[in-house]
């Protein structure tokens, strides 16, 4: 561990501690924005742990997120299980599912991988609906807990800490190095002795685990769980888009996409409520055209310029 590594850890810890203080100052409205930001930060960052270095764009986030939320709902509503027990079960189930999905996608690359994950997520969604309809016989899934938004937020900040720590560790480990090589040239990666399948599945499983954990932790916020809501494919797209917007080249890339995008979306919703979708679309196009390499790219460019001009 170099002094730079330690410095990063300390900084990360300070920032996370600050983030954990948000409930002390925020009112309900800012709390719910902070919660949304925390949720997408965790989802996008863990997504980018796998997809950033490999350039494999996964659209399966909703499947894992949905499994998390749905199992918590089913467990609490149909089987009267305790919330925290269900969080553990749901995230384990999500992890196992992610592992299987990871194995199944090994032979695919490029756009075939992208759409495969989308199709798989949709298959899981309709299967879950069918199972609910025919077997679990649920009459509405309620997640009634005493957890407020601030509690859920703190849970998510803890998960964020876990994700960042994992990301920090991976970047310094053989695994992270292997992922960078795979992202460059998978053929070469195999020929330098990297078990590419193993590395990819490990990281994919981790991001699936995080997504299902988030789905389980956020469920109390929705109170009432509908499979078609928690398995919404839109979520997968938004996670990808926020991560790409920020930039996937660095661990902190996604968050610089998530924060401005969430705030922008909020601003548009508040001020153009009747045309929010239209304005959001246009804002999106403007971002794509004027921030070609994402927020991260723009930031690094600016820094590079500043450095040049001061020297």
């Amino acid at each position, binding site marked *: 561990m170099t002094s730079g590594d330690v410095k990063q850890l300390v900084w990360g810890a300070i920032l996370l501690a600050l983030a954990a203080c948000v409930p002390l100052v925020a009112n309900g409205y800012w709390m719910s924005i902070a919660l949304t930001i925390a949720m997408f930060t965790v989802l996008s960052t863990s997504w980018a742990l796998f997809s950033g270095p490999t350039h494999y764009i996964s659209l399966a986030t909703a499947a894992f997120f949905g499994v998390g939320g749905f199992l918590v709902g089913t467990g609490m509503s149909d089987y009267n299980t305790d919330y925290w027990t269900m969080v553990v079960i749901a995230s384990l189930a999500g992890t196992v599912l992610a592992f299987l999905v990871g194995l199944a996608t090994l032979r695919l690359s490029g756009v075939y991988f992208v759409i495969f994950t989308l199709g798989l997520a949709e298959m899981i969604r309709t299967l879950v609906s069918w199972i609910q309809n025919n077997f679990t016989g649920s009459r*509405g899934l309620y997640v009634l807990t005493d957890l407020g938004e601030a509690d859920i937020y703190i849970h998510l900040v803890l998960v964020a800490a876990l994700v960042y720590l994992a990301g920090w560790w991976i970047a310094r480990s053989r695994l992270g190095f292997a992922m960078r090589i795979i992202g460059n040239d998978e053929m070469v990666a195999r020929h330098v002795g990297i078990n590419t399948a193993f590395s990819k599945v490990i990281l994919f499983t981790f991001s699936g685990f995080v997504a299902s954990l988030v789905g389980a932790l956020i469920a109390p916020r929705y109170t009432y769980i509908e499979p078609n809501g928690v398995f919404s494919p839109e979520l997968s797209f938004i996670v990808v888009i926020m991560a790409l917007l920020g930039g996937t080249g660095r661990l902190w890339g996604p968050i610089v996409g998530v924060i401005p995008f969430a705030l922008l979306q909020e601003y548009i919703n508040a001020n153009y409520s009747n045309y929010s979708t239209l304005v959001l679309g246009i804002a999106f196009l403007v971002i794509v055209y004027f921030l070609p390499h994402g927020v991260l790219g723009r930031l690094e460019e600016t820094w590079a310029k500043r450095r040049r001009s001061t020297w």
Partner: protein
Amino acid sequence: MKLTKLFKSAAIGLSASMLAVSVQAADVIKIGAVAPKTGALGGGAVVTQWPNVELWSKQVNAAGGLDVGGKKMMVEIIEYDDKTNPGEHIKAAQRLAEVDKVDFIVAPYGTGFNLAAAPIYAKYNYPHIAVSAISDKMPELTARYSNLFFTLGNTTSFSESVVDILKDMRAAGTIGNRVAMVNVADAFGIELAEAARPRLKEAGFDIVYDKSYPLGTPDLSPIIKGAKESNPDAFVAWSYPPDTFALTEQAIIQDLDVKMYYTAVATCFPAFVGKFGSKINGVFGAGGVNQDSPDIQAYFKAHKDITGKDADGWASANTYVSLQILGQAIEGAGTLDRQAVIDYIKASSFDTIMGPISFEDQISNRFWTVGQWQDGKFRGVKSSQMAGAAPIVAKDGWN
């Protein structure tokens, strides 16, 4: 020189407008409304929810506003699109409470959204008169949230009423025991199908076809074919808007000749009769209104005149009623104090276009459960304690 002038006038303008806002704020009741304009439920909310918010606020303001403790106050609506996304809805609700500081709110659209937002509205103690929500967990929820009211009825009575109609028709000799039942594989459809299944069996009906289909199935003709092959006397579909249209179109094409044909949500929509015309005479659907009531007729006319759209034959009127209740409760309590208004709602009876409505343990037991298209009008035929039910007729082919 010029610049300073500009600044000065801008500053004066700004302070003037700020003054105007604060003056206005004292005379205005701010009411927030969050419901979908886009997303999966957007198409329904645009028919049922939004026009009534517009209609009611315009009518109230045209009459000079609400009388709050002797002072006339206009209502101002602040609306947000929740994009049919629960997370968005919760955020917008928080914004209404914390940023816009609205005095009251219009309940969300859809069961899931009413439940998802209930904790938020409870936190700020807004009277939450849930209209478009059907659930059997209502007693538990009202026990948990003292500001929450339900008006549209519960799953049990909706399914019971359909079974009652079947029993009536069987007793009249119009149909036999064979019932085909399908449902959309979504919380709403699953709940209702589950509630109906034991009741049908108990009443001695054979469920000869019992299938679900996923939300967004593009071709429902196999369902109608399957149902037709089971040779039913009655067809019951716990369906959502797009499938209600698609099932009925296929039923017409395949000539599913049953004496009793029921589809759930959106059967009462103007677009339903707009699409099928006279062919759907005799079709049953969820909800209903008393078409003969002069109040309802006046409401329909005002709805058309002011919003330019036709009201649907069920939830539109209910939505309007919930706003009437809110308005009357504010006037009755004579204050904008929310707790006072909530207490007033709990204790009082309201004179609405659907007749007198009152709440027992925060739940109204007066609502329509089944309606039927009869000569171009969607009439309520089964209800819980509503007057003016039309007699049911048997469906006589698709003409």
